[in-house]
C-alpha cells in the first residue's frame, strides 16, 4: 500500500477509535447538552425582563439565554476534550500512539475530528432548541451563526488539548475545568449579561475566551455589521493561537529526551 492510503487508514482507524471512546462514556456530553437547554428555558423569561427594563443594551433575552448557555456549557465540555488526551496518558496509550507509524498531525486529526463533531452537535442542539422553541433568529443570515459555532468549537477543542498538557490527573482536570468554566462564563457575560457585571469585572472580560465567543454570537444574532463579527472572531483566533502554542508541548512529549 502506498503512503497516502496508509495515512488514510491510520486517520480512519483513529477517528473510529476516538468515536468509540466517546460513545462508551457519553454521560458528561449528554449532561452538558441537556443542562443548558433546561437552564435556558428557566433563565430566558428573567433575561427578557432585564432586557425590557433597559438594563442591557446588547442581546434580547432569547439571544442572551441561547448564546450564554451555548458558551457556558461548551466551556464545561472542554473538560471532555482534555480528558480525551489525559486518559491517553493515564492508560499509557499516548506513548504507543507516539511509537506508531502515524505522524503527529495524523494523531491530532484522528482525535480532533470526532470531538469537534460532538461539540458542534452540542452547539447545534442548544441553538436549535432556542430556534425551534423560542424563535431565535440570526441578525442577517444563518451562515455567520454557523461560522461562530465552528470557530468557538475549534477554540474549545484547542484549549481542551492545552488543558490536558497542564494538569496531571483527571481529578485536577475536573476541579480546574469547573472553576475555569464558571469564571470564564462570568467574565464573558455568558452567565449574566456583561452590562450587569461590576465595572472591574467588565474591564478584565476580554481576557476570557468566553467574552469573544459572546461577542461573536452577539454579532451573528443581533448586530449584522461585519466589523463586529470580524472583531469577535479575531479574538477567538488569538485564543486558538495561544492554545496551539500550549498544545505543541503535548506533541513534544512524544520524544522525552
Amino acid at each position, binding site marked *: *500500500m502506498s503512503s497516502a492510503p496508509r495515512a488514510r487508514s*491510520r486517520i480512519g*482507524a483513529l477517528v473510529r*477509535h476516538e468515536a*468509540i*471512546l466517546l460513545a462508551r462514556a457519553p454521560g458528561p456530553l449528554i449532561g452538558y447538552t441537556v443542562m443548558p437547554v433546561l437552564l435556558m428555558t428557566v433563565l430566558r423569561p428573567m433575561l427578557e425582563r432585564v432586557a425590557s427594563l433597559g438594563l442591557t443594551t446588547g442581546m434580547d433575552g432569547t439571544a442572551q439565554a441561547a448564546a450564554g448557555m451555548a458558551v457556558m456549557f461548551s466551556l464545561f465540555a472542554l473538560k471532555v476534550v482534555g480528558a480525551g488526551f489525559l486518559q491517553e496518558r493515564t*492508560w499509557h496509550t499516548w506513548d504507543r500512539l*507516539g511509537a506508531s507509524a*502515524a505522524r503527529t498531525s495524523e494523531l491530532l486529526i484522528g482525535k480532533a475530528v470526532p470531538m469537534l463533531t460532538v461539540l458542534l452537535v452540542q452547539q447545534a442542539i442548544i441553538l436549535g432548541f432556542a430556534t425551534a422553541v423560542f424563535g431565535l433568529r440570526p441578525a442577517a443570515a444563518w451562515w455567520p451563526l454557523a461560522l461562530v459555532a465552528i470557530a468557538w468549537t475549534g477554540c474549545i477543542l484547542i484549549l481542551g488539548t492545552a488543558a490536558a498538557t497542564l494538569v496531571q490527573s483527571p481529578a485536577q482536570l475536573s476541579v480546574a475545568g469547573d472553576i475555569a468554566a464558571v469564571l470564564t462564563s462570568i467574565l464573558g457575560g455568558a452567565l449574566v449579561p456583561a452590562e450587569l457585571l461590576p465595572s472591574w469585572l467588565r474591564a478584565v472580560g476580554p481576557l476570557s475566551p468566553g467574552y469573544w465567543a459572546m461577542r461573536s454570537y452577539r454579532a451573528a444574532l443581533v448586530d449584522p455589521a461585519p466589523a463586529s463579527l470580524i472583531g469577535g472572531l479575531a479574538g477567538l483566533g488569538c485564543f486558538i493561537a495561544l492554545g496551539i502554542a500550549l498544545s505543541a508541548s503535548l506533541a513534544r512529549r512524544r*520524544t522525552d529526551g
Partner: protein
Amino acid sequence: MLVAEGLHKHYGAVRALRGFSLCVRPGEIVGLVGENGAGKTTFARAVAGLVALDAGTLRVGGVDVAAEPRAARAALGWAPQELALYPTMTARENLLVFGGLSGLSRRESIQRAAELSVALELTDVLDRPVGKLSGGQQRRVQAATAMMHRPTVLLLDEPTVGADPLTRQAVLSAVRSVADEGCAVVYTTHYLPELEALGASIAVVKGGRVIARGSRTDLLAAVPGRAVLRYAGAPPKMAAPMSDPHTVQIDGSDVTITVTNPAAYVATLLATHADGVHRLRSIELSPPTLDDLYRQLLQATRHADVVSP
C-alpha cells in the same frame, strides 16, 4: 534486524545508557536480562523513538531511528512493560486500532486480529472490554497488538509479568512463531526459564550497557553447576581428578562439588575412585542455569565496579 551501537542517554546526573550495543538478526530472539534500573526500558523506549539519545546509532529494520523516525517506527512492534491498552474498548477494537495505526487496511486488520487471537488463545474474549479481562488475557492482547503488522523487529518488554503459566506458554509460542517468520525479537524478562523455553540467545544488561552476550550454551559453559554425591556412611577420601577450578563441601555423608561441568567431573571422579562406589546411594546433578549465570555476572561486575578506578 536491530542494531544498536554505543548508545548513551543521560537524565540529569543519571546515566541510563552507557555505551549500550546490541545486534539482533532476523529470526533471532534475544533475551534482555538485567536488574531493575539496568537500562532495559530506556533502551526499549529509545528503539520505540520515545527517547532522544545523546549519542550512538540505532537502526530498526535497516532504518536509522534518528534520521527516519517514522520509517523506523513502522518497522517496529512494541509492547511496553506497563499495560497500555484502551480498557473501555474490546480486545478486538484494540487490535484493530493498533493495526490501523500501523497502516493496515480495516480488512487486513480484521484478518490479522483473527489469526493472532487463535495463536494467543483470545478468541473467547475478543468482544469483551479489555478492562474486564484477567491480567493474563490483557497481557496477551497487548502482545498481539504489537504483532499486528508483522513487524521486522518485535520488542516485548516483560510481556508475561504477573501472568499465569498458560498465558506465559501462549505468549512464548506466539513469539517463537513470529521469530520463525523472520522477525528479530528482543524479549525483556526477569523470568529466565522463559528464555530457555524460547531458545533465545542472551544479553545481560548492567549499568546501561550489555555486559555479556551470546548463546545460552556458550554463556553457561563457564558457569559452575553442582553435583551432590550421597554415601552410606562417611564419604571416601578423594583426590581431585581434574584441574578444573572447583569446590568440595562435605556435610555428613553428602559431598557437594561445584564445578563447571559437573557430569564429566563426577564420571571421572568415580572412574578414578572406584573403591567408594559400592557405598554410593545417589548422585544429584544440577547443571548451571541462566539464574546461576545471571547471579555470577552481576556479582562479577559488582566486584569490578568496586575495584575499578
